[in-house]
């Protein structure tokens, strides 16, 4: 087998081999995903009903539903995003737009963020428990869980958003300056709308990580499977419910699969919502 010397689009044996290898990789990845999804759907779909989504759990989660966990999960995610989005956008703007003159600050912040992004989530959990729950006295609460998740998601959010901002061509800024636009107008009317795809990518990744999180939440937002009355109440996230049903409750497997299916659907819906919002924002400005 040798590579053909002839020019043009001649298909050689090596090309075919590479093509086959690529197709095989794609199929393997696709099959893996379908297997996971298939297993969850096969085990969980029969358990899902309106009552399952709207009822409180009983008998340690083997019976009843997951309504309190859904509410807690959404509240935790809400707190997380309410803190992480403004902070993340601000830091990304600083890094992408305002640190050209101060290289050292930018490098320092970026290094720390990349380091933080690689820290295992249980470390954030222990930090959250020590700082938010104990030092600030928030105890086991949705607030303390959401703040811990915000710390965890921030590095990811900032770095993705920064990449999005950097992808805006410099000619946009030069054009705006040539027209005499102020820095603020340039930012809100030109740069941010152009950077929306990057912002949404960061948001979607951050939401995914936050929704899937178990280790950081078990010591902060806690294990209580009741409807929270306020952000100061402890509330069990769906991911913790799935973990507990599959690892601590004999006979909880089917309910764990059903909860996992709900979590997947929730993630999908939130991603679609984020995409739709971004589309609307980009069109309106």
């Amino acid at each position: 087998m040798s590579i053909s010397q002839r020019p043009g689009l001649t298909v050689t044996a090596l090309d075919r081999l590479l093509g086959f290898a690529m197709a095989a990789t794609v199929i393997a990845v696709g099959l893996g995903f379908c297997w996971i999804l298939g297993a969850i759907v096969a085990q969980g779909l029969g358990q899902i009903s309106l009552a399952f989504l709207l009822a409180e759990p009983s008998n340690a989660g083997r019976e009843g539903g997951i309504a309190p966990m859904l509410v807690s999960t959404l509240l935790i995610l809400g707190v997380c995003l309410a803190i992480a989005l403004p902070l993340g956008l601000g830091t990304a703007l600083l890094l992408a737009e305002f640190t050209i003159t101060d290289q050292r600050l930018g490098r320092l912040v970026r290094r720390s963020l990349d380091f933080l992004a690689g820290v295992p989530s249980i470390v954030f959990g222990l930090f959250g428990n020590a700082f938010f729950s104990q030092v600030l006295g928030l105890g086991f609460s949705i607030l303390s869980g959401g703040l811990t998740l915000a710390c965890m998601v921030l590095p990811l959010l900032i770095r993705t958003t920064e990449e999005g901002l950097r992808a805006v061509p410099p000619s946009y800024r030069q054009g705006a300056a040539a027209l005499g636009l102020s820095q603020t107008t340039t930012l809100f009317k030109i740069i941010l709308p152009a950077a929306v795809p990057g912002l949404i990518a960061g948001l979607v990744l951050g939401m995914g990580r936050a929704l899937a999180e178990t280790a950081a939440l078990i010591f902060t937002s806690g294990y209580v499977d009741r409807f929270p009355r306020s952000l100061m109440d402890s509330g069990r996230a769906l991911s913790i419910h799935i973990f507990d049903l599959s690892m601590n409750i004999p006979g909880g497997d089917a309910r764990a699969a059903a909860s996992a299916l709900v979590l997947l659907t929730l993630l999908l819906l939130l991603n679609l919502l984020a995409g739709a919002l971004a589309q609307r924002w980009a069109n309106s400005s």
Partner: protein
Amino acid sequence: MKKISTIRQYSLGTVAFLMLGLTACAKPPQAANSEGIKLQGNIVLTGSSTVAPLAIEMGKRFEEQHPQVRVDVQTGGSSRGLADTRNGSADIGMVSRSLKPEEGDLTAHAIARDGIAIILHSENPVAELSPEQVVDIYQGQLTQWSDVAGGPTSPITVVNKAEGRSTLDVFLKHFDLKNSEIQAQVIIGDNEQGIKTVTGNPNAIGYVSIGAAEHSIGRGEPLKMLPLDGVSPSTTTLQDGTFPLARTLNLVTQGASEPTAQAFLQFAQSPQVQDLIEQQNFVPIESAPLAPSTP
């Protein structure tokens, strides 16, 4: 506590403006209970994952009787229950063993009994292991099932519990082992994880709560419990006190408790929760005479 609560107020104030929209779903406090007793406030329980599902169910029934009380149950293992009770972040700790002499600063309130059974995959032909054989297997001196009478020719996979788990403490104490001597291939956390490890590996040996194992066997999972000193493990032999590897599930407190926590402790030890204890495959304390070798 005063200091912490002022810091809490302050920190709450700073983030409050971001939260306004989110707190809208908070429910208003419920009207006063029509009964004579008006208990109110939060009770926080942390600790053993074996006790946590039972404590949650007890808490729900207690809340039905006292609508102004909330029972918050957290998990993480018995050691965490002890630590949180001592440092005050929990009102009540959950510990799935008896207190040790050096833990005399805490008061134990027994709520149920549970046993620990050695489990094998149901395809494993081994029918019984002597205590010496269990010790040898866990110390890594017996590594092949063929070294045991009736065993197949395959290596033994030793499944041990993680540090800080009461099941580990009770097991070590019964067989007079040290955790540092144990040569384990798999370290597990919660009960169901142990059962899944053994049902997924015909060569594995592990030990879990009898209640959890009975529940799994009842659902037809490929699992069997080995008899110990000739007594087969079941909630029945636990109840009559003949099964040797038994433990007490405790709620622990430090010093004098608040009236609400005291009421909950009494409730958790009363006959009103007996059906919940049985539902979670444990043995109620009244009907369980103390086993001879209780750790």
